[in-house]
């Protein structure tokens, strides 16, 4: 579980976060929405410990984030950044990096770790690429390779910054399926997204940020029915029914 209270972040005299309040529960997917530059990624980076917030409090499973060492944090929280690197390692090696927080310094994965790595690769469907170099994979395959690493890291909290940017529909579906599996496994899953449709379809809870503050929290239904899509994003929600009689929300430009 993540609790952020009145989180403030100042960088080079500029206020990036102006008192953001945020909560994410275990066994739920919480989606952070907002326009570019609203502070979503900064808040995620503060939660991940990559930036030290100037004021406020961030609790990860009840522990003060500022007091956690990287090694302790590595067992509580895993991160997937927005712009994924292209490391010159194989998919299996990348997946094995996920066991790092649990190994002694310089130690190699044991039998149990190898089983975890194998299972994670099967779950994300990347097993056929296990010997391929990550820097030679397509964008979607690379995303799944990093998801595999996160599954291997197996932390109670998972932070995903724009996990589906630049992915086609098929890979987006596979990424969302993996996120749902993480949620069903009891993890606290937090993701920033740009697509409001995807957010409404995926999220158990939605937070909207604007100018470094959280301006909305609620369920996907409450979000669709609020004035936020229009006032913040300039989009009008429209309920439609699919051929198989599913009710969907699409957001139209004004």
């Amino acid at each position, binding site marked *: 579980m993540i609790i952020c209270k009145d989180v403030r972040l100042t*960088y080079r005299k500029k206020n990036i976060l102006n008192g953001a309040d945020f909560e994410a529960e275990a066994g739920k997917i919480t989606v952070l929405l907002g326009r570019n530059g609203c502070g979503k990624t900064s808040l995620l*980076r503060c939660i*991940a*410990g*990559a*930036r030290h917030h100037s004021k406020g409090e961030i609790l990860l499973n009840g522990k003060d984030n500022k007091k956690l060492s*990287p*090694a302790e*944090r*590595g*067992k509580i*929280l*895993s*991160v*997937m*950044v927005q712009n994924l*690197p292209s*490391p*010159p*390692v194989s998919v299996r090696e990348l997946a094995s*990096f*996920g066991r*790092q*927080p649990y190994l002694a*310094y*310089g130690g190699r994965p044991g039998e149990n770790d190898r089983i975890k790595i194998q299972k994670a690769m099967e779950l994300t469907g990347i097993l056929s690429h296990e010997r391929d170099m990550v820097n030679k994979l397509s964008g979607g395959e690379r995303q799944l390779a990093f998801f595999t690493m996160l599954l291997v*890291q197996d932390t109670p909290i998972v932070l995903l910054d724009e996990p589906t940017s630049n992915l086609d529909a098929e890979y987006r579906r596979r990424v969302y399926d993996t996120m749902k599996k993480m949620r069903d496994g009891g993890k606290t899953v937090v993701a920033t997204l740009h697509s409001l449709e995807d957010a409404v379809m995926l999220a158990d809870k939605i937070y909207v940020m604007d100018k470094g503050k959280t301006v909305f929290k609620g369920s996907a239904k409450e979000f669709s029915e609020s004035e936020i899509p229009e006032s913040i994003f300039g989009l009008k929600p429209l309920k439609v029914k699919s051929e198989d009689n599913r009710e969907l929300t699409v957001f139209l430009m004004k």
Partner: protein
Amino acid sequence: MNNKKKYTLLFTALLILLILSAFAGIVLGGSDISFKDMLNAVLNKSVHTPAYIILFDLRLPRVTAAILAGAGLAVAGLLLQSATDNDLCSPNVIGVNGGAGFAYMVLLCVLPAAFDFLPLAAFAGALLTTAVVLGMSFTVGHHTSKTTVILAGVAVGALLNAGISFLSQLYPEALSSYSSFSAGGFSNIYFSDLTVPAVMIFIGIAAAQLLSPALNLLCLGDEMAQSLGIRVRRIRVLSLVTASLLCSAVVSFAGLLGFVGLVVPHIVRRVAGYDIRVLVPSCAFAGGILTVLSDLASRTLFYPAELPAGILLSVLGAPFFLYLLFGRSRKA
């Protein structure tokens, strides 16, 4: 072939190549000594024979120095490239050459009688400059920026090179001694010159090996490496300090050798892959081999004239590096 077998084969091949190059460096040379005389000198330890003097007082220290310098610079280059995630990073980028050269020149001009202290001055200059460069880059910005290290190094290096040019205008007589230092090489080296640098180089390579598991994770970027429990800033600082220690130790006896630190990690990556735990010993071996062979070529190719090994390394290294660069861009 599994990785364990592959790496055992690689290390064995490199060790054999290093032994063969060292052997060639000791037995081959400009002086016309027969193999029989050499064998005699080794077996009978006839200290005053020319063969013994050439083998043990001239060539053996020289080959040892070349192995130490090559190994130290190659591992330093690997550390710098890994810690800054920049393939073009090399020892001179963090101000080693500028610092060592400036200190050397200052001592030559101000205290020409203190000739014995020139290696110490070069060492101190290199270490002090890298400390300034690292200090500057660590105080600027919220995090240890990879780019800031390089920019600070280039700026400080340019300033010190301007200082060297200024001093050479004021003291033109110091220029010839400085030229041979800046070209780099292993002539007139004795075992006594190598004791302290050798200890530092061994410590530096051991430290690099210790840092290698964490450096492997830096390829994921700072944020993801940190989320895997790595203290990114600490690892980067320790890597840069170790690299500067290695470079300073080498500069003190070999002068400003170019290209080893830049080229060797690239060559070795092509054969050994990207695991830094494997690359550290591989670079140490390969750096030693390349430098011993360059030194051998530099003293035999134009005999009786001797080319500084640093010049030959640059002559061979620059085109090879361009080949790598263009090869890569063609592939891309």
